[in-house]
């Protein structure tokens, strides 16, 4: 390495270090620990968009629908902090005249009180002990990290069966 290149590298490193140490007091993560689920083609790492998807929490107050008949490639599935189990129903749009198909994903977990930061606040993290699903359209589900935190990373991978991908 020449002297000039060394000086350039050293100055860039110094600049990066000093800038990295400057926080502006903003929260760059979520204000709650929400598992972000993303859809993939079964057996691959290719993401896909699920058409006409409806997502609803089972026993949600007033049967509130989280996503209604939309085309999505990912969605947040908020977990309940007062119980240890949360279930979601994923209902897929079908051709006219055919009955719709739905899968159910079940989370079993322990809510853990967590103070993230002054900017993001306090919340619950969720230590997931088991994750199950039915297999009408979903081939499998995997959890990226057993502890769901307030980061914006994908927490849940939902693999859709080959027969149902287009």
């Amino acid at each position, binding site marked *: 390495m020449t002297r000039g290149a060394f000086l350039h590298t050293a100055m860039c490193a110094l600049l990066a270090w000093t800038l990295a*140490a400057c926080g502006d007091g903003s929260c760059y993560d979520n204000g709650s620990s929400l598992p972000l689920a993303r859809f993939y083609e079964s057996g691959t790492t290719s993401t896909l968009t699920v058409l006409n998807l409806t997502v609803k*929490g089972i026993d949600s107050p007033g049967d509130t629908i989280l996503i209604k008949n939309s085309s999505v490639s990912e969605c947040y599935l908020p977990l309940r902090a007062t119980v240890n189990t949360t279930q979601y129903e994923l209902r897929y749009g079908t051709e006219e005249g055919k009955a719709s198909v739905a899968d159910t994903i079940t989370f079993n977990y322990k809510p853990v*009180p967590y*103070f993230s930061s002054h900017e993001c606040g306090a919340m619950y993290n969720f230590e997931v002990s088991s994750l199950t699903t039915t297999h009408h359209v979903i081939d499998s589900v995997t959890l990226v990290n057993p502890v769901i935190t307030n980061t914006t990373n994908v927490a849940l991978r939902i693999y859709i069966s080959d027969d149902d991908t287009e």
Partner: protein
Amino acid sequence: MKHCLSYHATLLRYALIGLMMATGLGISAQERRVTPVRPETNTVRTPDKNLDPKYIEQYLTGDSLKAQAEARKDSLRRVYPRYPRLTDVALGINFIDPVLMAFGQDYASVDVSATLNMWNRLQPVVELGLGWAKSTPDDMNFTYRCKPSPYFKVGANYNFLFKSKPQYQVYFGVRLGYSTFNYEVTDISYKNSYWQETTSFSITNQRSHALWGELAAGLKVTLFKQVALGWSLRYHGVFSYGKSDNARPWYIPGYGKRSGSLGFTVTAYYTLPLSKSKWPAVD
């Protein structure tokens, strides 16, 4: 017979050499002359203006090497005044944070320090203090508390004005800080809008520690007699800190906000001179 001839030849050789040397000496003695001094090289060197008369005396008495050495030392003393190894000790109190707390800052650190001034140049420093915090930010769902907790820092300053009087200092310094402390996050209100649930909880008895480093730049000015005031700007970073499954500390005593990188101190000093009789006379 052969030996005899050789012996005589040697004698003859020595005799000739002796004759030549005697003749040569006689010639050189006769030709010896004093070289005339040319006027342009015959200048008289005058001593330096500030040279002590005792060195001039040494020159005149012929001990010029010693005189040169001592004159050089004397010159260095004037350009580079040498303070004694233990020049003074300054006891300080950093009081800016309580003032800032009155203007809305959520945390404070107060420390006392001892600074040993060595040669008016290198200054080992020890700082001991207490830090605390209480914060209930607007539009957030918690109250963060850190009870008064101890911290200490060790380091050193380098005084750039070491040629000047110790009453005026501009310095650059480094510090290594450590603190162990307890904190809690209370009155947490957690709302899940989709499931329409609201829960309240607290995270208590959180124990942590932190190790950090600081780069400091500052100045110190004596206001009257032995009382001085100074400030320093500090750029710092945390090397390591303790976190649990439930929380990470927001505030570190002696450091400030864990995510922050700048600190500021204002310190009042009381200075005790040491070996003052050995202090050089500095304008």
